[in-house]
């Protein structure tokens, strides 16, 4: 939205747009009409997200089968690739059941409130130089702001369902998300400190088109550029932050071993117990898209985004993202679930103090480097 209002508001961006081969040109530059560009961008993002969810669910089932020495889906399509599509069709064709004592506005709005913010968050990422729906100087903050909104939808689902399992699941989910957001953001802040170069860094050094741009640590594109300019990915200088981020991201997305909010053996299905058909599918969609969002943030923050030799930018970006996603699936099918007190102790007793110390270390490092 901010980009649509005034695309040139970020001074660094404005400067970069006037100098060729520097910062990613947004979709708005490719298509002269900003409204049309936004629409096209959102359409492209939605198509990508649908494909991503279809693929991720298939991958999850295949990887879990592989880990457990099973076959996984094999029937529909080659290697069972179209199994998720068939499942989706089944969900679409199912009747939407609304239980009788629900809080109707909350119950009906909850899937949308969970679903919409993650789509906004995905549209903020620079997949390659020149490939971004919106490139704003506040990208990282916006991603965290919108990723944090899903929790309101989870609360609405849990409270509105008028079901004790749903409410318990929502309470656990809210407590877990609020707690783990702190180490998540603290570990990201360490990278922001390292990526900020108000005095400017030299891009494409050693080539005729070498030039200097000031970098701002809150812009996703700038964080990537900082890693490109310095020649190393931040995971090398911030391994502790990367581990903290990954653990906190698993908890943020309610993935095992932190899937206490929807622990099947205790809570049926947690906050979405009372949802069926497409409404359930929207929660599912949001959950897998959330995984994608946290992986893409990790890719940009720690693994250099589109940066990499030989292969083109988007290939590197998605290679890194899906490697992280594979890691998340791997963890889910090999680690047992934590108890709630263990979950809280891990966050407040270990991750938060270590993240704060790491942030102090990063501040010193940012001065030295």
């Amino acid at each position, binding site marked *: 939205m901010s980009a649509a*209002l*005034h*695309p040139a508001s970020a001074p660094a961006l404005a400067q970069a747009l006037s100098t060729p081969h520097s910062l990613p040109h947004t979709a708005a530059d490719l298509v002269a009409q*900003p409204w049309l560009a936004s629409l096209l961008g959102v359409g492209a993002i939605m198509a990508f997200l649908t494909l991503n969810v279809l693929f991720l669910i298939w991958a999850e089932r295949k990887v879990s089968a592989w880990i457990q020495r099973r076959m996984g889906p094999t029937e529909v399509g080659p290697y069972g690739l179209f199994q998720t599509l068939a499942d989706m069709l089944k969900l679409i064709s199912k009747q939407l059941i609304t239980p009788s004592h629900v809080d109707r506005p909350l119950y009906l709005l909850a899937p949308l409130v969970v679903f919409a913010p993650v789509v906004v968050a995905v549209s903020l990422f620079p997949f390659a130089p020149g490939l971004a729906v919106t490139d704003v100087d506040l990208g990282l903050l916006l991603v965290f702001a919108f990723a944090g909104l899903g929790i309101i939808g989870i609360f609405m689902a849990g409270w509105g369902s008028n079901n004790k399992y749903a409410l318990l699941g929502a309470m656990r989910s809210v407590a877990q998300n609020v707690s783990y957001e702190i180490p998540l953001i603290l570990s990201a802040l360490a990278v922001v400190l390292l990526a900020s170069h108000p005095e400017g860094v030299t891009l494409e050094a050693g080539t005729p088109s070498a030039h200097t741009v000031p970098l701002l640590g809150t812009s996703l594109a700038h964080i990537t550029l900082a890693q490109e300019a310095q020649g190393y990915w931040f995971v090398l200088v911030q391994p502790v932050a990367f581990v903290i981020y990954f653990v906190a991201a698993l908890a943020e997305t309610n993935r095992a071993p932190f899937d206490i909010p929807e622990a099947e053996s205790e809570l049926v299905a947690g906050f979405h117990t009372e949802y069926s058909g497409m409404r359930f599918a929207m929660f599912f969609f949001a959950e897998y898209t959330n995984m994608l969002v946290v992986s893409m943030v990790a890719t940009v923050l720690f693994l250099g985004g589109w940066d990499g030799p030989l292969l083109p930018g988007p290939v590197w970006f998605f290679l890194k993202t899906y490697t992280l996603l594979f890691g998340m699936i791997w963890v889910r099918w090999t680690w047992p679930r934590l108890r709630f007190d263990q979950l809280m102790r891990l966050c407040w007793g270990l991750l938060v103090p270590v993240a704060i110390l790491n942030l102090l270390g990063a501040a010193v490092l940012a001065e030295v480097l």
Partner: protein
Amino acid sequence: MQETLAFTVPLSWYLILAAILFTIGAIGVFTRRNALLVLMSVEIMLNAVNLTFLAFARTRGDSIGHVVTFFVIAVAAAEAAVGLALVMGVFRHTRTVNVDSLRAMRR
């Protein structure tokens, strides 16, 4: 795009809107008896004040209003945390969040 960059909404509109929002918040503080709703009404009032700060900041073209708004948001966060802790403490003792029924100090 150029036309969107011209300021067509005058300062007074923002100030009037802020005044209306502030009144809504104040009415909430005065008439609601549920402590949670009183706290929410205070948040509306703080937001109305933020709006005036930002409106003046744009008109004057300096960032002081933004800095002050940042502080207001920080204070609001602190106020909400302490206020909600108080509500929880009160509820634990009296099993109510109705501010009218808290008369122990009056006797």
